[in-house]
């Protein structure tokens, strides 16, 4: 099979799995997860084949795998859709397929496959546990998810959206994949729709990302109207980019800059950057594999991928040293978000919410890197982040699962299994989860030399330093420090010390379907950094000969970006912030016994700078007010009902006038009630057909229709 054909086929298994599960296998949990995981494996194998063929290809960047078909006639020519895998695409395909496969496998264990049905579980609510008799004792064990098959169907559709987005060679099909993911995030965040918080979170996620998507669609339309094409390789030619950068449009911006800004707003929504970040922490209401899917493998990565993809457009109007308007905006939003989300993460107590804010913060790193033109560093961090964040989310799911085990044991359902202050000492109870979580946490903090997070974060800092973007450099360094701090806080509170509750004492290691993905992902969370060690790094650089990642991905661009010069300042900064943050986090939280001893529970941070409240006040409340007062009270009740209320009395007046002046004196005196009786008689006969059954009316209509048709046919013929 040629590689191009194979690329066309990569997104196919998940979507087939979706339809198979929905239409045929939904009653069987075993069949459904076999189909789902099988599809994930097929796509995974396909992606790996494509990736390794891409790596083996000489001059791959100049001749990427691409093929297109004519799709829509557009007057003069054709609108083509097709697939494209260039170095960047191959890299993204690599991590996407691994993480998706791992998440599918993990979901089997997470949803308690093989456990009995719950005693009183309902669809749309998390399973509550089942009682089983064992040697005369009654035990409560975790029960299987009631909507197990549905979960795999949605997850498969999600994977389909991501694969479509990655292999697309044009903005339109990319946008289609983008929107499929938007839908799936809604479905999966609201998977437990019986919980009001979950369905509110689903609506919030959908609405917030929609704001970004509208702007993105505007950007796509504008781009199409200017260039007449949406295919990446046709847009990124020198003359097109030059033409776009030459002309100016609204607000004195260049066309390319303006389009890039519109597309970037789409990313702000999708990748949860300030000010559209509010949906992502609430998205934690979904099952944990979904959080991992949204936060690592697919959704938010797609946002960053879109900006990386459109990078030539972003930098088209860049001359010399200074940043053009759009890039400055991108850099500002990225750096600001990185710091802003990191400060919130410090004060969160829910194990998943800490990770949610850390995702926002890490995405801010990537966006900031793109804003200052660090193309390769952003792509590198995207890949490493996907590995360690998927690992951390799956690890936190494993912890929650273990805690739920404890909750079932003590039957005290007031204990929140996600609150880190209810944990502690899980290190010995859940060793595999602990060690893998530690690796993921250290990678997130950028633990020097070993972990992948160190190399990618260091590269962003080095780039910011080398190009003298001091504000970005300092902001990101502070954010990196906070990252290490809250990560260590999380690890200390969750795993180290003594158990703070009875539930934590009875926590349990999770089944192999959940721990295997953790082990595999922790392998990548460590080793993947080694493919991107800078060439001039002391000792290690020469050992690895060249920076393979930079070499491979950098060639995606027409002009290969230069790796920043090696300098001790950013390296030392990385070392200090990572080790300092980790050390401080351990020292501060080593002896903290309860929430009240935590000094950093500042209300401002705890309440996320009151952004939810502010948006509620600024947008939601006015919308309700407008609907209530303007539309309902003024328009409907006042104007429209007012007009109708004039009709009522006036017809009444005319009616009584006719009755008094005509009916009573004339008709009644001369004709009597004859007409009424005739009508009454007819009514009596006709009411037999007024059965009140719609189907009978329709049947009657059909018969009459056929009769009239027959008459017309025979008469006219």
């Amino acid at each position, binding site marked *: 099979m040629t590689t191009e054909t194979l690329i066309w086929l990569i997104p196919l298994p998940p979507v087939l799995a979706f339809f198979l599960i929905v239409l045929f296998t939904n009653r069987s949990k075993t069949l459904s997860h076999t189909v789902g995981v099988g599809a994930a494996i097929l796509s995974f194998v396909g992606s790996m084949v494509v990736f390794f063929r891409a790596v083996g290809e000489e001059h791959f960047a100049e001749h990427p795998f691409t093929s297109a078909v004519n799709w829509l006639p557009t007057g003069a020519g054709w609108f083509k859709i097709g697939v494209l895998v260039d170095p960047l695409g191959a890299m993204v395909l690599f991590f996407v397929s691994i993480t998706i496969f791992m998440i599918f496998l993990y979901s089997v264990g997470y949803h308690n496959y093989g456990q009995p049905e719950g005693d009183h579980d309902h669809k749309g609510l998390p399973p509550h546990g089942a009682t089983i008799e064992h040697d005369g004792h009654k035990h409560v064990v975790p029960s299987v998810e009631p909507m197990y098959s549905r979960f795999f169907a949605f997850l498969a559709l999600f994977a389909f959206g991501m694969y479509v987005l990655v292999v697309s060679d044009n903005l339109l099909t990319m946008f289609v994949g983008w929107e499929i993911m938007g839908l799936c995030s809604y479905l999966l965040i609201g998977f437990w729709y019986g919980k009001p918080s979950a369905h509110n979170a689903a609506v919030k996620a959908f609405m917030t990302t929609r704001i970004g998507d509208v702007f993105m669609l505007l950007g796509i339309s504008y781009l199409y109207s200017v260039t007449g094409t949406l295919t990446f390789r046709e847009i990124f030619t020198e003359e097109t980019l030059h033409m776009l950068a030459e002309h100016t449009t609204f607000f004195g911006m260049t066309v390319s800059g303006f389009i890039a800004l519109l597309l970037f707003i789409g990313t702000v929504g999708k990748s949860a950057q300030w000010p559209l970040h509010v949906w992502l922490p609430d998205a934690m209401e979904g099952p944990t594999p979904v959080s991992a899917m949204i936060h690592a493998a697919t959704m938010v990565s797609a946002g960053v991928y879109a900006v990386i993809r459109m990078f030539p457009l972003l930098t088209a109007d860049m001359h010399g040293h200074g940043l053009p308007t759009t890039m400055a905006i991108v850099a500002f939003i990225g750096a600001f978000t990185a710091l802003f989300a990191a400060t919130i993460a410090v004060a969160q107590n829910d194990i998943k919410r800490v990770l949610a804010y850390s995702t926002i913060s890490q995405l801010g790193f990537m966006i900031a890197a793109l804003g200052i033109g660090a193309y390769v560093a952003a792509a590198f961090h995207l890949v490493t982040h996907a590995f360690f964040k998927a690992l951390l989310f799956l690890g936190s799911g494993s912890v929650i699962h273990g805690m739920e085990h404890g909750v079932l044991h003590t039957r005290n359902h007031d204990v929140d299994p996600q609150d880190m202050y209810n944990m502690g000492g899980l290190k010995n109870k859940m060793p595999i989860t602990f060690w893998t979580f530690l690796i993921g946490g250290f990678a997130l903090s950028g633990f020097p030399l070993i972990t992948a997070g160190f190399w990618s974060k260091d590269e962003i800092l080095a780039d910011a330093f080398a190009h003298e973007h001091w504000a970005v450099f300092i902001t990101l360094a502070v954010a990196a420090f906070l990252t290490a701090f809250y990560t260590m806080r999380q690890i200390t509170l969750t795993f180290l010390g003594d158990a703070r509750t009875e539930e934590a004492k009875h926590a349990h290691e999770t089944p192999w379907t959940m721990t295997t993905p953790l082990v595999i992902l922790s392998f990548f969370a460590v080793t993947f950094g080694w493919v991107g060690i800078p060439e001039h790094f002391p000792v290690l650089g020469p050992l690895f000969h060249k920076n393979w990642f930079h070499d491979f991905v950098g060639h995606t661009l027409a002009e290969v970006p230069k790796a920043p010069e090696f300098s001790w300042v950013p390296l030392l900064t990385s070392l200090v912030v990572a080790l300092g943050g980790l050390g401080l986090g351990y020292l501060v939280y080593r002896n903290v016994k309860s929430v009240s001893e935590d000094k950093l529970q500042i209300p401002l941070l705890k309440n996320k700078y009151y952004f939810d409240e502010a948006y509620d006040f600024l947008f939601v409340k006015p919308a309700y007010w407008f609907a209530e007062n303007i539309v309902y009270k003024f328009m409907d009740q006042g104007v429209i009902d007012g007009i109708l209320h004039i009709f009522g009395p006036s017809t009444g007046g005319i009616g009584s006038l006719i009755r008094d002046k005509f009916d009573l004196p004339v008709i009644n005196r001369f004709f009597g009630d004859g007409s009424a009786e005739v009508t009454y008689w007819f009514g009596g006969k006709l009411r037999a057909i*007024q059965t009140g*059954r*719609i*189907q009978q009316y329709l049947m009657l209509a059909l018969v009459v229709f056929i009769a009239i048709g027959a008459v017309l046919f025979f008469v006219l013929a």
Partner: protein
Amino acid sequence: MVPLSWYLIFAAALFSIGLFGVLSRRNAVAILLGIELMLNSVNINLAAFWRYGDVRMMAGQVFAIIVFAVAAAEVAVGLALVISVYRRRNTVIADDINMMKW
């Protein structure tokens, strides 16, 4: 090129399925679905006749688009009615909505 009759047969089949749905289903939403099928089978006919007739005459396509718009409006009104009936009477079974019969 696919012969015209294929489209007509397909449309007729779709229409019959829709008609059967409308006549046999008791759920008001399913009845609406059936109506949609019937409308769309007509659209297929319109588009097919346009394509196989004089392509420069746009009436077939335009008509199909008008049908879309009407169908969208119809569904919006129909579903709104179904929802408000459901809120008052807690059922969407057409037979149970019988207050107006004698």
